[in-house]
């Protein structure tokens, strides 16, 4: 949900182990001059980027502290060009990293080791629109919000809406299995992709999925979505379209305790009302927003402010608003506001949408964490995060998708404070540990990338990771596609191994450290 806000930044979580840019400064194992010449023979001149200052634009994604300048970048415009480039990589044994628009938040689209970056940002054509069958086929560089723009006139839209949707690409959404505020009701990317044209790591082009949501074939489409560029490059993507809702209403309730807000979320869901989205802001965020606005938009003593968006048929939405409002009051809401027309709705959303900016006024830098807990564990985990926040002396603001338990704690810090980044990364890791202990996940929508691979063995046993690697070997036996991402290796996770040792001393039960594959 958090976007690639220019003020958002992250400490290098494995700083001690990796050091930024070490790999790309080492001695080169490939003759990049020769590779460049081969690439220029395959691609138009403007599609090969080799000048140092131009390569700077590709040295990081939304996690700006993970910087590694790639030796070369190509900008193909067609499937054939992608395939030709990947075939060359396969021939020469050169690793490659697929990249969309570089808005990811887990360092996934960064070439950490010597690898060719294949950016799909010029593959921006809408290939086919089939409204009769409610689908559209696009190239991977098409921006998320363009899909809706292309079909909105006919009353359709594309549902997954990551908050970076004005800049992020569909290809990147497929790689990360992106969600968004409305995925509570409508699902994430994987629920909306019918068919993928994919260039495999050996350069062959294949089709995964098909024209219908079920195929008499292994669902490699579902497997590919969310594989973070490690199984190949999607070059054409067929998406399901939905009918735009007739009516939308927003309800805003404030609570004296997080438990009460959590109970409201539970009661609304249990009543059979499936809201399009449910968002909660904690007391810290509420005060930051009030400070930003210069007036008390929300009661400053509110422990939680809950926003519920409901959509559908007009009478149905009206009934749902009544019911949800009633359930919020029963759960202990002190005030409930509601809005139906667009301007009033925007007003209720305004505080939520300004939350990051409001927090950004307190300190210039923050780290956005992404973890998931079972919905019922939210109040307990939030209380634990607050205790950690005090222990580390770092403020944490919580703005999150309450309906699906997806937390996005913002850790606030001053980058000029000596040693602070280490503390931020430790706090970030402890928050993930809370998520896992509560039965949750280390990432709900930002992906593992390079940022979280060293926590994968907190969540999965070696056998689990080894089983996932079977898939990798089937798709990419030579390991050329986005090497080093998602899975922990001793080289990338030496730091993690030390942390695990510490946790074991504390008596925390963890799976055995994973072995190299």
């Amino acid at each position, binding site marked *: 949900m958090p976007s690639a806000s220019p003020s958002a930044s992250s400490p290098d979580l494995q700083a001690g182990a990796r050091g930024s840019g070490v790999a790309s400064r080492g001695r080169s194992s490939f003759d990049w001059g020769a590779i460049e010449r081969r690439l220029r023979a395959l691609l138009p001149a403007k599609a090969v980027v080799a000048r140092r200052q131009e390569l700077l634009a590709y040295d990081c994604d939304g996690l700006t502290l993970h910087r590694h300048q790639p030796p070369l970048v190509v900008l193909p415009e067609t499937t054939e060009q992608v395939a030709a480039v990947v075939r060359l990589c396969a021939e020469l044994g050169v690793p490659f990293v697929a990249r969309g628009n570089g808005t990811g938040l887990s360092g996934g689209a960064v070439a950490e080791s010597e690898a060719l970056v294949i950016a799909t940002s010029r593959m921006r054509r809408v290939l086919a629109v089939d409204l009769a069958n409610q689908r559209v086929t696009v190239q991977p560089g098409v921006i998320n919000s363009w899909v809706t723009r292309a079909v909105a006139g006919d*009353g359709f839209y594309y549902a997954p809406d990551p908050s970076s949707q004005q800049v992020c690409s569909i290809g990147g959404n497929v790689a990360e299995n992106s969600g968004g505020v409305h995925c509570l009701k409508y699902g994430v990317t994987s629920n909306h992709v019918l068919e993928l044209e994919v260039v495999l790591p050996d350069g062959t082009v294949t089709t995964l999925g098909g024209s*219908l949501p079920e195929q*008499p074939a292994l669902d490699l489409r579902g497997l590919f979505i969310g*594989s973070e560029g490690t199984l190949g490059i999607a070059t054409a993507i067929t998406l399901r379209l939905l*009918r735009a809702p007739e009516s939308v209403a927003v309800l805003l309730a404030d609570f004296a305790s997080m438990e009460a807000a959590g109970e409201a979320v539970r009661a609304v869901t249990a009543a059979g009302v499936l809201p399009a989205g449910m968002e909660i802001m904690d007391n810290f965020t509420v005060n930051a927003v009030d400070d930003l606005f210069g007036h008390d938009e929300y009661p400053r003593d509110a422990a939680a402010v809950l926003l519920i968006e409901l959509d559908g048929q007009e009478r149905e939405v009206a009934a749902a608003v009544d019911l949800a409002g009633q359930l919020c009051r029963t759960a202990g809401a002190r005030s409930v506001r509601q809005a139906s027309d667009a301007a009033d709705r925007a007003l209720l959303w305004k505080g939520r949408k300004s939350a990051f900016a409001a927090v950004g006024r307190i300190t210039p830098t923050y780290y956005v964490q992404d973890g998931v807990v079972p919905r019922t564990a939210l109040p307990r985990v939030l209380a634990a995060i607050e205790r950690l926040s005090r222990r580390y002396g770092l403020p944490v603001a919580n703005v999150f998708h309450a309906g699906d338990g997806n937390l996005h704690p913002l850790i606030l810090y001053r980058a000029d404070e000596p040693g602070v980044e280490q503390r931020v990364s430790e706090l970030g890791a402890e928050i993930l540990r809370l998520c896992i202990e509560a039965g*949750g996940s280390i*990432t709900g929508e930002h992906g593992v990338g390079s940022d979280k691979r060293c926590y994968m063995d907190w969540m999965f046993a070696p056998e689990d990771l080894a089983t996932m690697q079977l898939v990798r070997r089937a798709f990419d036996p030579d390991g050329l596609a986005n090497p080093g991402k998602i899975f922990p290796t001793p080289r990338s996770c030496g730091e993690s191994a030390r942390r695990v040792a510490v946790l074991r001393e504390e008596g925390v039960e963890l799976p055995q450290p994973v072995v190299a594959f």
Partner: protein
Amino acid sequence: MTPEPHALPDLVRELHRQATPWLPAGQGTRLHWGPPVQPGPGQERPTIVSTARLNRVLEHAAGDFTVTVEAGLPLQHLQQALAEQRQWLPLDWPWGSSADGLGAGTVGGLVARGMAGGLRQRHLGVRDQLIGIGLLRTDGTAARAGGKVVKNVAGYDLMRLLTGSWGSLALITELTLRTMPLPPQRRGLLLQGEPQQLEPLRRRLLAAALGPELLDWWSAPLGEAAGQPPLPGLLLGLASVSGEAIADHLAAIGADAESAGLRRQELDPERLEALRAVALGPDQGSGPDPLPPAAAGPRTGRWLLRLGVLPAEAAALLADPLLAGLRLSLAAGSGLGLAWAEASQLPAYRVEALRRRCRALGGQLTVLEQPASAGLPAWEDAPSRPLIEAVKRQFDPLQQLARGRLPGVQAS
């Protein structure tokens, strides 16, 4: 073989050591669907390893709307357990179940086949409900993917890989699924007429502000089987928190249907369920048939076809004489459905023609059941066949599992 849970890993390891071919199973109610499974050398029929004793609900986190079960749990028992908390798994009973879910087989079986029915219109498919999986690989290694939270992108999505894998990759042992609250209000409507009269209604119903929970095309013989006039139809199911919203919508559609000259019948929830049960085929709810001897091979004198066309082409399919005599229920929004007929009603060449027709209409046809003599390939090669085979080699290097039954690879 129906081992106790604790004995399962050792059994699988032993089969691996001997390189014995075997077939993962639940209760074995639908093992004969799809391509016949080849026995190994010296075997009269494939060894079947059943999860029927792995049949517990491990955790129903009602407040989180998730449930974790062992794979051999009967689907009927799961729905009963969830209903006690006013929840459900929003999936249709598989074809061949009785109205109350008797004979529906296990949750693991449902996932292994990966086929959803009309409820896909609102709730999506089997793969979309699955958030975590436990499995036993052919070498006896137990592994997991996903987790117990509804939103999770850590690691590869093995849930989707195993959904619809037909036992070809691993034995599914444990599943975590999302659950839903039971809908507060539910009503239905059956519209009947010629396909070209129904098609505008289909478009309007799918585009309506109150979207259907299900909208299924019915062939004339299915209507007749349900005691209705022998006319094609559309079966509409609506669910909402607002009974008034449903009533408004039904009144509006009723007016449209009348002006289009369609026959219409409003359905209360019980009547809607009764009609949906007719679309589950002949009632086979005589209880689970514990691993019939001829399991995993053709055994019936009947055709059961999984067919699909692009949603906008369904009316054309319904009007096609190739469909004559077939009972068909096909989801109007997804274009996926099931058709069935007695062997004597349908010669194999007509099924082949129907397969070509489905392909021409942007879809495909899978043969789930066929008369023993027909010999049609259950499914055809997918474009990604080489990759599918590569995945198979990684998961099942000794080619032990479900020999001859790999989705996306036509049996030779």
